[in-house]
């Protein structure tokens, strides 16, 4: 009798598994299952609805020959690169400034963090007005008397992608700042004091001690920002609608247009798979370095 375990014990043992099972199942089906389904679709000639006539890599060939896809991937590289770099730079500068034990820090922090609470649709609409040449910044500066001032990026197909960068940076840099600020607060004060005793100047302390110890924060910020960049869809829809022409299209917009409104589901699925490839190319090295780091 003594070695027979009571029922409650057994229940307690399997409880975590039981509780996790539904969400595990949902994740398996709704994320990984549908990834596989999309992968399968991308090899079919599906148009309006899924059709299981397999055509090999046809859709991928079509995709690679598509001018609009070329523009949207090029835009993603420009937009993603600048967005991540500027956000990281601004975030760390603002975090360091706020970390100088200034007055009203909580208030300022909230101000900078607040744009994150807004959706990209709102950000996009607001910046659409601000950047509109006959309505926003250009008009104000001209009304001040600088009649030659021109700031027409929003309607210029060469420059419009930088408008996306401006709006996205405005929204996300505060969030990066908060990440870095948390990181800065976690830096061992003893080390800094020791360095000060050794006569290190403040810039040296930041360069040699504080910033290197923020490496994990850099990594998380980079991963978060890069997936914000790749999935950007709402920002383009609200800010430019993909225009002028399709010069500010991003891959996510391309995918939506083809899969859902243009009855080219196969092509849309193929573009989705290429985007997934892009995300994996960033994620796998990151996960690899993270997991290896833990083992050591």
């Amino acid at each position, binding site marked *: 009798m003594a070695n027979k375990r009571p029922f409650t014990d057994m229940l307690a043992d399997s409880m975590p598994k039981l509780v996790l099972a539904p969400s595990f199942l949902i994740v398996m089906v709704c994320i990984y299952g549908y990834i596989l389904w999309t992968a399968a679709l991308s090899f079919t000639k599906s148009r309006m*609805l899924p059709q299981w006539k397999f055509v090999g890599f046809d859709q991928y060939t079509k995709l690679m020959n*598509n001018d609009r896809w070329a523009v949207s991937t090029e835009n993603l590289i420009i937009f993603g690169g600048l967005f991540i770099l500027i956000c990281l730079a601004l975030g760390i500068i603002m975090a360091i400034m706020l970390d100088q034990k200034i007055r009203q820090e909580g208030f300022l922090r909230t101000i900078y963090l607040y744009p994150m609470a807004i959706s990209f649709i709102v950000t996009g609409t607001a910046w659409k007005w601000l950047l*509109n040449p006959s309505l926003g910044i250009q008009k104000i500066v001209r009304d001040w008397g600088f009649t030659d001032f021109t700031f027409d990026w*929003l*309607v210029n197909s060469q420059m419009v992608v930088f408008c996306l960068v401006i709006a996205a940076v405005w929204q996300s840099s505060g969030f990066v700042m908060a990440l870095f600020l948390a990181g800065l607060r976690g830096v061992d004060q003893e080390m800094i004091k020791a360095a000060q005793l050794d006569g290190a100047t403040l810039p040296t302390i930041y360069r040699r001690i504080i910033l290197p110890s923020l490496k994990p924060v850099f990594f998380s910020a980079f991963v978060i920002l890069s997936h914000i960049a790749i999935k950007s869809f709402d920002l383009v829809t609200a800010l430019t609608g993909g*225009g002028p*022409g399709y010069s500010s299209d991003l891959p996510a917009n391309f995918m939506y247009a083809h899969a859902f409104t243009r009855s*080219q589901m196969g092509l849309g699925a193929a573009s989705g798979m290429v985007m997934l490839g892009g995300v994996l190319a960033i994620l796998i090295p990151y996960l690899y370095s993270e997991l290896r780091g833990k083992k050591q």
Partner: protein
Amino acid sequence: MNKTKAAIAGLALAVSAVVAQAGEVEVLHYWTSGGEAKSVAVLKDLLTKEGHDWKDFAVAGGAGEAAMTVLKSRAVSGNAPAAAQMKGLDIQEWADLGFLADLDGVAKKADWDKLLPSVVSDIMKYEGKYVAVPVNVHRVNWLWANPEAFKKAGVAIPTTWADMIAAGPKLKAAGIIPLAHGGQAWQDATLFEAIALGMGGSEFYTKAFVKHDDATLRSAKMIDIFKTFKATRDLIDADSPGRDWNIATSMVINGTAAMQVMGDWAKGEFTAAGKVPGKDFVCAPAPQTEHQYTFNIDSFALFNLKSDDAKEAQNTLARLIMEPKFQETFNLNKGSIPVRQGMDETPFDSCAKLSMADFSGTAKTGDLVPSFAHGMATTSSALGAISDVVTNFFNSEQTAEVAVEKLANAVKASM
């Protein structure tokens, strides 16, 4: 006591009898803005008067894109609505997948073949059987002009594309934007389509945008059309990208711009601003398309249903849509013209009368052509391919020769 019981029982019987006959039609549509919603309410009233129930299923947004997404998921899960607002070649795609109901019973009884021009009924039929019912006709090749602005600049309202481009500098000198336009892909395509029809003619237009004939798409005429299209870019102000069509229309209304090429839904904006056709604004066919007509027809596709009551209600809906009463009230509200031929013209305004006369006139000469920019002429994938090329050409420094090459290739790739 017994009498009341009997009365109640009788009443209950009567009610149940009515219920048994009444079917419910669920109607998916995207007419949600003011005037449009009013137009739909007309249909709902007519249907309830016939003893059937109307279940409204409105999905707003994106010129029906959102509605189409919802429709796909409903249809695939075997739960399609009785009727869905749908246009052009989409009807054929749905019918091809076997989702649509056969309406020939209703159509034969009311003799739809006589009431509709064959260009229109061909779109509503799949393998010779009606599967959809048309609601209204929009003419797309309209030029909306502000006569005051033209008087100020001292030029006449253009009747050819060359005239329009020539009028540009004079209008600009008078401080007026010559052409109001919104830089969105479908608006670019609407303007391009009017130029292509005017310069190329109906046969060329049909060959290029309905049949997708490769030689026509690559022809020298097409290069000329693209060149003219690019020249109209100079008539448009720099801030046009992303502008909605109704904002562009309001520029014509208040005189900051002289004219706009847009379908007759623009008329609603003029009349809502209290303007009178012929006096405060002029509606004329787009340059060089006086005897041609690009149509954009709204229609309802009817889906296969299981229960007989629901089928009965669905057939009633289809019959009501084609009846003169609905055709008249709906189109007066919406600003379009009835698709049914031989209707009384008196309640309509001068623009609509012109449209009605041209609609039946061009139907006879073969100059009644489907608007490709509005999905009437070609599949959504070919339309997407064409409008990508058109809008990119319009907004970049690409040459007409390169654009024509890209057009032909893109159309081929979308097949």
